[in-house]
Structure formats: structure tokens, C-alpha cells
């Protein structure tokens, strides 16, 4: 029981990170019907941006307080990652809007290869160990031979995720920007007729998704303590799986899917086989798409002839 509780805590932590990335996939798919393949690599890029600014603040500028440093890193990371996503959308996807459907997907795959190799070339191919931080633990429950612990990192991850999701939910539901975004999602042409700048809204969708991915990037760096240029692909696919499982296009679905994928992955590793944990995720992806293509909370797609 204690073991299960511990794995449950770990799974929720991991799932929060996946959920944050999954929102980027689900929003972009919702608005332009495209699988933004480079999103995983934007996330990877954000882990490096977070690492570099953390080192800059703590080593070069000598900021002693970790909380202040992390907060500044979070803001800067969100801004710069968003700028990257904005530039990528502007250069690689916008010229292909209205082209045939595979074109943006191929362009996104090219962008994904470009980004991971850019980081490899500029930052080197090795693992980058991050100085460990926030690793104190609280013992939640003392079992017979197993103590359930909750680390400060995990608390930070879950709290930051919930706080940002609340802000994000407010933006999408209550502001003019969010209304424009939802309108474009329903009918882009009609939204344009009503005076919404569709291109700008789509850019903002990419920016919002990237900002959340940057949060996930910082949390990922803090949680795992190591970043690598190849860390975009697999977390990206897992987050995409989360988006699909929750129902692509649905924002609560993305978070729910993220939590489920995080839990499934952790419990699978804990009880079955750690070697095959990625196989489990990929199988869920395939099974969901084949048998439940609209996901748990998605709207079924109606085919019109």
C-alpha cells in the first residue's frame, strides 16, 4: 500500500509535466488541425534555456535565493521559449497554411530535427547534470518497512502546475484573446468575417502552448536534474499520447490524459518492467487512436461527404 502510494505521488508529478506539454499539442491541433511535431523539441529547448539562465543567475550574477532565481528563470524561459515558438510558426508553418495537409507535418518534422541538432551543436552532445536543489523530503506516512515521502520538488511541480493551469484557464475562458482563440477553433473563416485577426490568434496559440511547455521544461529540469538534447522526442510523444488519450482539442482532456499517462508509466515501471515502459505508452497511443479516436473527453469527428 505504501509502495503504491509512493508510486502514485511520483506518477502525479510526472503527469503534471506531461499535461503541461500536452496542452500545447491539443491547442494547436484544435485550431489548425496540425500535429505540431516540433513541440517536444521546443520543450527540450526550454529545458536548456532554463538551465542556462539558472547558471547565469546563480554563478555569474550570484543571486543567493533559489526561489528568486527560479522565479526569474521561469519568466525568462516562458518569454524566450514563446519567442522561439512564434518564430517557428512564422517561418515554417504559416507559409504552408492552406497547402495540402501533409506539408505542415513534414515541415514540423524538419523543424524538430533542426531544433534537436541545433542544441546538440551549440550546447554539446553530453548529458548536462544540473546542481541538485529542493531535494528535501517530507515523510507523509511511515509504513512497516517503507516510508512514503513527498519531496519539495514534487510539491513545487504540482503547485506550479495547478496555479498556471488556473491562470491559463482564466485566459482561455474569460479574456478577449481566449474568446478569439475558441472562435477560431470552431470556424476560422467565420471568425475572420467577424473581424478576428486569425493569423495573430494562431500565433498566440503557439505562444501560449510554448509558454506552458517552458514551465514544464523548468520543472522537468528541477525534477530530473539532468538535461539532454535528445530529451524532446520521447516526452513529446508521451505528451502527444496524453493529448490524444484525453481527446485531442480538449484542454481538460489534455491535463487528464497527462495525469493518466504519468500514472500508467510510473505504475507500469513499478510493477511490471521498467525496460518496456515506453512500449506501454506507445501501445496506449496506438490503442486509443484505433479504438477510441475521439479520446476520453473529445468530441467525435463527424465525416461529411
Amino acid at each position, binding site marked *: 500500500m505504501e509502495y503504491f502510494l509512493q508510486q502514485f505521488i511520483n506518477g502525479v508529478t510526472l503527469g503534471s509535466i506531461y499535461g503541461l506539454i500536452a496542452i500545447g499539442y491539443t491547442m494547436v491541433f484544435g485550431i489548425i488541425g496540425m500535429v505540431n511535431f516540433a513541440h517536444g523539441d521546443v520543450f527540450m529547448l526550454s529545458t*536548456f534555456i532554463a538551465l542556462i539562465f539558472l547558471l547565469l543567475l546563480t554563478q555569474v550574477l550570484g543571486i543567493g535565493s533559489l526561489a528568486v532565481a527560479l522565479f526569474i528563470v521561469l519568466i525568462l524561459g516562458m518569454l524566450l521559449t514563446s519567442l522561439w515558438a512564434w518564430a517557428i510558426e512564422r517561418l515554417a508553418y504559416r507559409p*504552408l497554411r492552406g497547402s*495540402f495537409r501533409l506539408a505542415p507535418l513534414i*515541415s514540423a518534422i*524538419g523543424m524538430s530535427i533542426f531544433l534537436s541538432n541545433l542544441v546538440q551543436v551549440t550546447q554539446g552532445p553530453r548529458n548536462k547534470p*544540473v546542481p541538485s536543489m529542493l531535494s528535501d523530503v517530507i515523510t507523509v506516512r511511515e509504513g512497516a518497512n517503507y516510508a512514503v515521502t513527498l519531496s519539495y520538488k514534487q510539491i513545487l511541480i504540482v503547485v506550479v502546475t495547478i496555479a498556471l493551469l488556473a491562470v491559463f484557464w482564466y485566459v482561455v475562458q474569460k479574456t478577449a484573446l481566449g474568446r478569439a482563440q475558441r472562435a477560431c477553433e470552431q470556424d476560422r473563416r467565420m471568425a475572420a468575417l467577424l473581424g478576428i485577426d486569425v493569423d495573430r490568434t494562431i500565433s498566440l496559440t503557439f505562444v501560449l502552448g510554448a509558454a506552458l511547455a517552458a514551465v514544464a521544461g523548468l520543472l522537468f529540469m528541477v525534477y530530473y536534474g539532468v538535461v539532454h538534447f535528445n530529451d524532446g522526442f520521447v516526452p513529446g510523444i508521451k505528451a502527444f499520447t496524453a493529448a490524444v488519450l484525453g481527446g485531442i482539442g480538449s484542454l481538460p482532456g489534455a491535463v487528464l490524459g497527462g495525469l493518466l499517462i504519468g500514472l500508467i508509466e510510473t505504475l507500469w515501471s513499478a510493477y511490471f518492467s521498467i525496460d518496456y515502459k515506453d512500449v506501454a505508452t*506507445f501501445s496506449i497511443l496506438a490503442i486509443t*487512436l484505433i479504438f477510441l479516436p475521439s479520446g476520453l473527453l473529445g468530441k467525435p469527428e463527424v*465525416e461529411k461527404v
Partner: protein
Amino acid sequence: MAVADQPRPMASNPIVAALKDALGTALVALGLAVPILALRTEQNMANELVLQPRWGYVGVAVVGAFVARLFYLIVAAAPKRTRPVAAPGAPGVMGRAFAVGGLIVLVLYPVLALAVTGQAGAVKWIDNFGIQIMIYVMLGWGLNIVVGLAGLLDLGYVAFYAVGAYSMALLTQNFGLSFWICLPLAGILAAFWGVLLGFPVLRLRGDYLAIVTLAFGEIIRLVLINWVPVTGGYAGISGIPRPTFFGLPFNASDEGFAAFFGLEFTPLYRTVFLFYVILALALLTNWVTLRLRRLPVGRAWEALREDEIACRSLGINTTNTKLTAFAIGAGFAGFAGSFFAARQGFISPESFTFLESAVVVAIVVLGGMGSQLGVAIAAIAMIGGTEILRELEWLKHIFGADFEPTQYRMLLFGLGMVILMVWRPRGLIATRQPSIFLKERRAIRSDLVGEGRA
């Protein structure tokens, strides 16, 4: 600037406006470059990460972005020449001449390489360029059946390549079979896997199909990594026997190819032989594809690509049609994989990552989906272009001795994919020749061809 005679209400002076725009681009480039380019994380002796500033690179990126944007604005502002739409008619004459010429060059390629670079250099040129490119041409043509003709986007094509390679490795190692027996077996096994993996994904379309095939490709690779007793895991399988020339091995022994014909032994014979084997396999793929296009099943593939619902209402069995496309495409990947295993003599899961699938898909799409010639040109451009970076030793004289051109290989590949896609979304060869026509044969623009939605 030529734009001066077109009044623009926004900008009083177009040059100032262009400069402002370019300055904005440079600022964005600065924002993009600062974290990733300016500071490099390095581990010091105490295994701690420290930052190394490299502001020079940022300067280059910012100035480069400024100049590129200005250049783009000037080009875009120049009055557009209206390009006459190529008159459709007398199609294929140029294409046919080009294809025949290309074929002659390919057949003579080893001789040319030998004549130009001499015996020592020829092995490298035939192996790194000739064989390497031909493998991708063959994979591209095989995938073209699935993506270009049937319109099913398969991002896990490398799985079948892997099945072919591992079939070859395991059959030769465990049962002592020769290359020539394993080659068809590997193709059949890969085709079988094509049916097996194709079956569950039949009802998916477009992006979803692409993602599921990607998932299957990754699952196969993960199984190859983790099923150590059979596949050897990361260590892979080595000592795969090389192909023989009608039973004559290419080695220095008395029964070898060189000794049998009374020639002096060099490794060149094997390389040239392998080149002709892969050339023959690739041409077989091409020939089969061209013939299949004219058969009912080929016409059904193309009809399926255009409109699945119309197909079904005309009584075409879409299940079987899709499965044959999957199986035949997979079979050719199996052939290519078994050739790859025999050529390398060693295989490991490293060779079958998602990147390989992406490369093959890129070749097919950039070549112009469905165009055989376009796929071949794209393979030569993309693979040859990245291979040629290995040969650019002279760049070290410009950028310093620690400049390694090969590490930019995939960086440039990804960038090339994006640029080519934005520049020509319909691929390099953007015309199609319908295999059935009313009255006269003519080429059509590929905008009119279906999108691979099925």
C-alpha cells in the same frame, strides 16, 4: 527600389520601412540566439556546469538575420514576373530522356568513380555515395507505393527495414542460410509484418495514421533493444555473412572471386558488386511500381488516395487495397533492410530510429509524392548533400582546426526539409502523369492530385 512606383499608405519611404522591418527581424534573432548560442554549458574538472560566453556567434546570427530579411524584402518588392503556366502536353519526353540518361550514369557510375578517383578513392565514393544513396532511393520508391500512390502516410516505415535487416541477420546466423536465400525470405517476412501492423490501423486517416505507424515503429525498435537473448540488445548482431557471387566469396582466399578469375585481390570488387546488387533491387522496385500502377490494384490505390468514400461506393474493397499497399511497400523495405544488413555485416537498433523514417518520408514528399523520378532526385540531393559534408575538409582552413562539418549534417538536413517544404510544398517534380486518360496523354499539376487523407 523597384517598388517606389507603387504607393503604399503605411510607409512613406519604402527603404526606411524595409530597414525597420529588418531591424525587427534582427531583434527577434537576438532573442532567439541569446540563450542557446551566447552561452555554452561545459563541465569543468569538478563536474560542475559552467558557462562559456560566445557572443561572436550571436553577432553573426543577428547580422545574418538582418541581411537575409533585407534581401528577402528587396526580392519580394521587385515586380513579379508572371511565370507562364507550363503548357501540359507532350509530357514525359524530357522526363524520359532524363530518366534514361540517369540510368546510364548509374550503371556506369563505378567505372566513372574508378576513372576519376583511382582505386583507393573509388571504394569510398562507390560505398559512401553510390550504395548509400541507392539504399535510400530504394526505400523512397518502396514508401512511395504507400504514401505516394495509396496516400497512407506511414511514419514507421523503418520498422519494416529493421524487420528485413534482423531477418537476414538471424536467419544467416542461426540457420546458416546464404544471402541469396535470405533476401526473398526477409522481404516476405517484412511484407507479413506490413499486413500485421497494417490491419489494425486501416480505419485511421491522415495524421492519426501517421502517429500510429510512428508508435508501431518505435515499439519494434524498443523490442529490438530489450529482447536481448534474440537480438543482442544495443550490442546488435555482428558477423553477418557478406553476399557471394554465385557462391564465390569476395575474400583473399583461393576459392575467392579474385582468385577464381585470376585477378589480384582488392576490396573494390565487393563494393562494385554490392553497388550493382542494390541498383538491381532499386530498379526492380521501380519497375514493379510502374507496372502495378497500370494494374487494377494500382488504379484502386490512386482512387483510394483521391476519395475513399467514392471508392467504397464503387465496390472497391478498401481493406484489401490498403493492405496490399502496406504489404508491398513493407516487402521492399525488407529487401532493402536485408541488403543493408549484408553490406554492413553488423546491425544494431541504432540504425532504425525514427529519424530514418523521417528521412525516407522527407525524400518521398520532397520528391513530389507519387513521382518516381522526383523521389530519386530528392534522395540524391538529401543523402548526397549530407554525405558530401564529410568531404569538406577544406572548411577547416577557414573555420579553424576544430571545425567538424559532419556534426552539422542533420542540422542542415532538418533546415533543408523546412526550406524545401516552404519553397515547393508539392515537391520537386510537381506534375503527375495519370496512367489512364481520355483521348490524349498529358501531364497534370500535382495540386490536382489528392492529399493523402485516407
